[in-house]
């Protein structure tokens, strides 16, 4: 392998050596990539709620409302992060397991896991491996409920990137899993959740 490494590096150097000068890295400010808010919001939470819906996710901050939504979707059995279980046990008529069993991949209709952050400007939910109790629990059920602490809402994408740390697997989720492969027609729920809910814990 080391010979291929050498070949590539020497080919790169041979290609670049003749260049009379090289392009400098442009200085750019974070404001450059922050998008227009398209609306006036009194708080990050309000903006996040608006942008989640814009991205075809759902916003929720009440346990009763969540229980209603789940029942309306015929989704009464699922998976929940064991650390979040005490909070969500009060969901009326809803049961869950706190250890993900792969044999039940098609039985879990919802999954509740922690979000590490949420991005107000884009309605994005951020999942880090270190905060996610089970990758499968966040991915395979039809409904994914990401529990977001209000204090973890950040305004912009650059701020979310600031919080990466050394986590090995970070996922930005902006909307439910979707495809438009068949004749450009939008269908939600391909391999991942068909319904993505951002649940704010105040």
């Amino acid at each position, binding site marked *: 392998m080391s010979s291929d490494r050498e070949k590539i*590096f020497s080919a*790169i150097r041979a290609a670049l050596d003749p260049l009379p000068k090289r392009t400098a890295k442009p200085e750019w400010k974070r404001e450059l990539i922050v998008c227009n808010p*398209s609306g006036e919001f009194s708080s990050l939470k309000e903006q996040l709620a608006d942008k989640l819906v814009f991205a075809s996710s759902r916003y929720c901050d009440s346990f009763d409302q969540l229980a209603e939504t789940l029942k309306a979707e015929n989704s009464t059995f699922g998976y929940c992060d064991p650390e979040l279980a005490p909070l969500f046990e009060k969901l009326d008529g809803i049961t869950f397991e706190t250890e993900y069993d792969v044999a039940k991949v098609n039985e879990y209709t919802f999954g509740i896991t922690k979000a590490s952050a949420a991005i107000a400007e884009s309605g994005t939910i951020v999942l880090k491996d270190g905060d996610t109790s089970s990758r499968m629990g966040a991915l395979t059920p039809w409904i994914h409920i990401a529990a977001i602490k209000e204090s973890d809402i950040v305004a912009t994408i650059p701020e979310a990137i600031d919080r990466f740390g050394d986590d090995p697997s970070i996922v930005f989720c902006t909307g439910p899993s979707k495809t438009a492969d068949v004749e450009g027609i939008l269908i939600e729920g391909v391999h991942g959740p068909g319904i993505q809910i951002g649940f704010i814990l105040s």
Partner: protein
Amino acid sequence: MKSKQKIDLVARDLTNEVHEANFIGAKMKSERRYAALGRDYADPDKLRETAGLVKQHTLEHLDKYLEQAEASFERNGAKVHFAFDEDTAKKTVLNIMNEHGCKSMVKSKSMLTEELELLHYLEDQGKEVIETDLGEFILQIDNDHPSHIVTPIVHKNRRGIAKSFEREGLGDYNDDPETITRRARAHLRQKYLDADIGLTGANFVSAESGRIVLVTNEGNARFCMAANKVHIAIVGIEKIVPTDQDLGLFLNLIGRSGTGQQLTVYNQFIGGPKLKDQPNGPEHMHVIFVDNRRTEVLASDCREILRCIRCGACLNVCPIYRQSGGHAYRSVYPGPVGAVLSPLLAGNRFPELADLPKASSLCGACNEVCPVNIPIPDLLLRLRDKAKREGAKEAMKGTPNLAMWATMCSQPTMWKAALTMGHTMNHIPTQLIPHPSAMSWQGTRKLPKFEGGEFRKWFKNRK
């Protein structure tokens, strides 16, 4: 139309159905792109120009950044491999599979694996490989090729897909797109669970932190890293950007440029094997950096094309692509980006694809929409020049011989005589000119009346 150029021949023979699917799909995405960028940024061009410079800078310091990326991945606990050519790249994948005792692979979309024809290679070696992107899965069961780099089955319609699903035993004929998607979901879910290795490409690589970035809407790349124990990321060396913060710039552009989404649904940042406490996901991560002639492109005067982030915007906006569809380009990368990249990546097979740079009206739309501001029309001209100098036959087809014209233009007396002659042209039916290209040109157009030849007189007598 009498053109002999291959791309014209393919375009001519497209069925109306396919032509319409290509045209409408491309137009729709172009319109969404325009709306999304205009809505979200006062000056989207500033983003494009900056992104272009960031990538150009990275490419012109690629030795440094590639070395940094390698060190960062190793620090994260990933294993780094290098593959100079196609063969080594494929063998490296196979060796990793064998080393971990893997028999079946789930893979997400990667144009690089199309370049390598990795799927067939692994199947020949007795491995099972499943494409998990819905479009790529359909191509796999149809033994077909992508016609677009973002929406690979834009050339197909629901009826054809329904028939393929029926043939593959995925249920009775049903052409409802939702049913098609649900059936694929159920079928592929089992494949994810059964597979022992997941393979992905990478849309970007951060040299600073040693992270690959994957951009998908379906979530299939997430699934390729959930139930299995080994993950391979196969990456072209041009995918590197310097820092994590730079990624924000590109992610804001790629979704908006390709499909008009503010962000693609899933942006994954993968820097190594899963954490110890995480019950699901790969315990081993392998990163394979592949050259496969990219350093040749870097050495050429078309190196700007390596900035490409494969968003597909130039395909969608291109009047030629809209008419011809992606298969007409006879290579992995279609459209304006493909007209530059495919001949370059073909190595000594350049002459076979040397006609592609001519498949452009040089209208400049591709440059205008490109999120990394690649001057595609300039690069097309450079490649036309290269084709001419190398005497590539494919590029000459359908091109009139201009030798007489050149002689006439370079001899003042002949030129003068020709201008006087011009007026007589008005009195003879030009359809009778026995030159094939003149005849074909006039099949759809009318030559205007000749009114020239007066300039010298005017110039001499002017006061």
